[in-house]
C-alpha cells in the first residue's frame, strides 16, 4: 500500500503536511513511467529557487529521463523554503526511495485545503482504473 500519511495529485505528485510545512515529491508510479524500470534512466531534475511563490497546482520544475520529461506540480500553494540538494547530483535516490529520501521541495503552506487532493485510497483507485 502506498503511504497514507500524505495526499496525491492525479499527475503523481504527493504532499505530506507537517504543521505549516508541506513536503512534495513524486510517486513510485511516476518514477516507473519515466524510467521504464531502469534505475539509471532519470537524468535531470530542475527544481525552483527558495523564496519562489507557488499557486495551487503550479508547475515548479521538471524531471527528465532518457526519453521523456515531465512537469512537477505542487498540490498546494506556498512558498518554497527548501530544495533537496542531495538528489541534484544523485537522481537515483528518487528512483530508490521516492517517498522519503527522494523528497523534492518543502514549502511553507499558503493553503491547507486538501479537499481537492486524492488520499492514498483514491490514488490507488486512479492507478487501478488506468491499467
Amino acid at each position, binding site marked *: 500500500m502506498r503511504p497514507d500519511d500524505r495526499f496525491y495529485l492525479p499527475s503523481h505528485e504527493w504532499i505530506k503536511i507537517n504543521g505549516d510545512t508541506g513536503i512534495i515529491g513524486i510517486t513510485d508510479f511516476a518514477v516507473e513511467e519515466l524510467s521504464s524500470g531502469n534505475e539509471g534512466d532519470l537524468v*535531470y531534475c530542475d527544481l525552483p529557487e527558495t523564496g519562489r511563490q507557488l499557486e495551487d497546482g503550479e508547475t515548479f520544475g521538471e524531471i527528465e529521463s532518457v526519453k521523456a*520529461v515531465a*512537469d512537477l506540480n505542487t498540490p498546494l500553494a506556498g512558498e518554497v523554503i527548501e530544495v533537496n540538494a542531495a538528489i541534484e547530483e544523485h537522481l537515483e535516490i528518487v528512483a530508490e526511495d521516492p517517498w522519503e529520501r527522494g523528497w523534492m521541495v518543502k514549502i511553507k503552506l499558503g493553503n491547507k485545503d486538501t479537499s481537492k487532493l486524492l488520499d492514498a485510497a483514491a490514488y490507488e483507485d486512479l492507478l487501478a482504473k488506468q491499467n
Partner: protein
Amino acid sequence: MPFIQNTDADRAEMLAAIGVKSVDDLFEQIPAELRLKEALPIDAGLSENELRAEVAELASWNSPLAGAPHSKGSFLGAGLYRHFIPTVVDSLQGRHEFVTAYTPYQPEGSQGTLTVFFEFQTMVAELLGMEIANASMYDGCSAAAEAVIMAANMVRGRDRVVVSRGVHPHTRRTLETYLRWTGIELVEAPLGANGRTELGGLVDDSTCAVLVQNPNTLGVIEDIEGVAKASREAGAVSICSAYPISLGLLKSPGRAGFDIAVADGQSLGNPPAFGGPSFGLFACAQEHVRRMPGRIVGQTVDGEGRRGFALTFQTREQHIRRAKASSNICTNNALIALRGAIYMAAAGPEGLREVAEHCLAKAQYAAKALGDLPGFELPYADSGSFNEFVLRCPIPAAQINRAIDQAGMIGGLDLSRWYPELGDDLLLLAFTELNTREEIDRLVTTLANIAAAAPVA
C-alpha cells in the same frame, strides 16, 4: 553523386515484380471519377540544350557583386560580406554524402553529419569564446531573437529587453516579431554622437536582456566590455551579436564577459547570394545548456564502446516538450553551416586572423584616402572600426552611389535608408580581402571627381 536511371526494361521488371501491367493499374483504388483523364495543360518541356540556354539567358539579367556590369569593385556590406571562399569549401560540400544527408535523428545512420556538426560546435564555441555552441540556427537575426527569448526564460519576472539601435535593423525587426505576443517590452538604446550605444539608465532590475552588436551597423566598434558589465550589474542576461570574420582580431563576446553570443555565419564560406540562405551561430556557458535552443550534438560511445556522436538534450525540443519547449526551431541550414565549418577548419585561427588583418588594412587604407578628400569626412573615426565605416559626403549619398555605379562599381549603403535621423549624406562602405588596391584607388578617384563636379552648397 551516383546517377540512378530508370530504363523501360527496369520499369517492366518492377511492374512484373509487383504483378501489374502498367503504372495506371497502381492507381486503381482511386475512384474513376476522381482520376485525371487528360494531360495537364503545361508545356511539353524543353530539351536539355534548350533549357540550359533559357536559364542562362535569365541568369544574365543578374547583376552580380563581382562581375559585369560592376566588375570594377563592390563596397557594399551592411550585414552581408563578400569574402574569399577557398575551393575546398565547394568541393567538400558538394560531396553527395553531405548534400543528401538529412536530419540526424537516427545516429546509427548519421555519423558523418553528426561528426561534422560536433566539430562545427567546437569551432563556433572557440570562435565566440564560449563553453558550448549549438549545431546552428537559421540566420543571425533569428539567432539573436532566440537568445532574447532564452534570456527572458533565464531571468524570471523581468519583462524588458534593451536593444541597441546599432543592432542591424533586420535583427531588430525579427526580434519585434518574435516578441510580439510575449508581453515583453522592447526598449531601444540610442547611439551617441560617437556612433556607440548609450545605455544610460535603461538597464535596470526590470531588464532581462541587453543586446548589442559588434561592430555595430555603423561599422563602429562598441565598448562591449562596458555593456557586458552594465548588464551583469543589473542582473540581466547580456547578448552580443558578432561578425565572425572580425573575431580574427576583435575580442570575442565570451572573453568580453557576455552570457550569450550569436552571429550570422554568411561571412564564413558563403557568398552574399542576394541575401541568403545563411546560418546562425549560437553559443553560451555550459550551465545554460538546457535553455539553449537548437540542435546539440554530443559525443558518446556506442554499444561496442566505439566513439560516436548523437543529438543530445532533445528533451528541450518541441518534438518532446511541445508547448514548453525552449524553442520551436526543429531544423537548421545544415548545408550552409557545413560550408561554414569547412571554411573555419581550412582557415583555422591563424588564417582567420590573416583574413581579418587584410580587411582591416584595406579599410584603413580607404578611410585615410577618403577622409583626406575635401568635402568628405569620417564622423566616427575616433571610435574605431573594423572593415566597414561611415563616410559623410558633400552631396547626398544616393547621388554618390549613382556615380559609382556609372563607373562600373557598386557603392556602399545609403545610410538614410536605415538611419534617416542621421541625414542623407552618409555612405556605409565595406572592404574585404577581395577589394584590391586598384579598386579602392578607383573609388577614391571617382569620389574626388564627383565632389569636384558637384555644386558647392
